[in-house]
């Protein structure tokens, strides 16, 4: 089987190249076709591109993003959309319970290597709702099927407008929509 060339799948080439880049969204926004890339699969481990009707699950590890007084998430919970990509799991490929179990194991590993982390909770969102976040008529977010070998359901939600005002707007809109949606662990 021939390996894909950049011309055949620039999306996959890009995400392979930037797999470990904690600031990949900045590089993504230098790509003119980044919105069109949603129709290309970002990973050879992926079961396919993310359909707008899909339910996505975000696992939360850090209580610093949660306000216990109002039981709401803080805007900082959504910051990853502008740097490394906001990691989510595609529920149709990995159920919520399985995501939570994997999340708990991940938190334990991370705790041994870094500051203590524990599974805090999760929230769910429709891909179409995330894709509908817009500013001045311009779409702000794209979702790529950035599957990894140990998690084929993995996807990234990324800002596709390289503008600080657009990021703050998208973050505010996500906060408004999902701040009270956290399901505690």
């Amino acid at each position: 089987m021939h390996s894909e060339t950049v011309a055949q799948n620039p999306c996959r080439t890009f995400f392979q190249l930037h797999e470990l880049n904690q600031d990949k969204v900045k590089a993504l926004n230098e790509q003119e076709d980044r919105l069109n890339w949603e129709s290309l699969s970002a990973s050879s481990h992926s079961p396919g591109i993310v359909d707008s009707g899909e339910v996505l699950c975000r696992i939360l590890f850090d209580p610093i993003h949660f306000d216990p007084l109002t039981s709401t998430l803080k805007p900082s919970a959504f910051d990853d959309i502008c740097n490394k990509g906001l990691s989510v799991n595609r529920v149709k490929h990995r159920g919520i319970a399985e995501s939570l179990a994997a999340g708990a194991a991940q938190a334990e590993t991370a705790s041994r290597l870094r500051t203590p982390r524990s599974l805090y909770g999760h929230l769910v969102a429709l891909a179409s709702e995330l894709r509908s976040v817009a500013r001045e008529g311009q779409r702000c977010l794209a979702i790529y099927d950035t599957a990894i070998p140990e998690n084929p359901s993995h996807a990234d939600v990324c800002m596709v407008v390289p503008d600080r005002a657009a990021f703050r707007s998208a973050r505010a809109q996500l906060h408004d929509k999902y701040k009270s949606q956290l399901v505690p662990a």
Partner: protein
Amino acid sequence: MLMETIAFATLLASQKPVTKMEGLFSNSGINCGRQFFETTDISHVYTSVAGRQGSFVAPVLNSGWVYDQQDSLVSQITDYGEVLKARSAADGRPYDLAQIQKMIGAIKMIPSGIPTPNPMLSDSGELGLYWDTESAFADLVLEASGRFSLFIRQKDGASKETFLEDIDLTESVFESLAEPLGLLCDA
């Protein structure tokens, strides 16, 4: 057995010897007095939720029931400093701790009449304050440049947004932001 804190219900000013006193205390040792409305006698002493022992005929010094939201906010930002130190130790990545003092300075510049904001800290170490009221959302972020940016989004149908960046925050600059931030105040 550990003696819990006892808060006495009312202090009797008369010369009569006290024969029986009732105290109220919780198992957690929280000092709490009898609450409100002890009597219909106007001149009698009431105590507050925090068990304040004063009377209403003397000025109150160090009452313990006066709270300050600004102090609490500064305290939370200071706590974020400890989080950043811990992350730095774990990651081996330096975080800018000078920003803690800068943010505390910003908090103390918030003009009177603006609601008290909430603090936030991003995974990348970026400090911010945010307001989320019925009429608007706003966030004030201390950027890596050492300057601030302010974003406001109204919650009416038009969802009008304001974004100001590269702000060198001084008291007079904050005063000039009082008008857009005034959108946060619910009608």
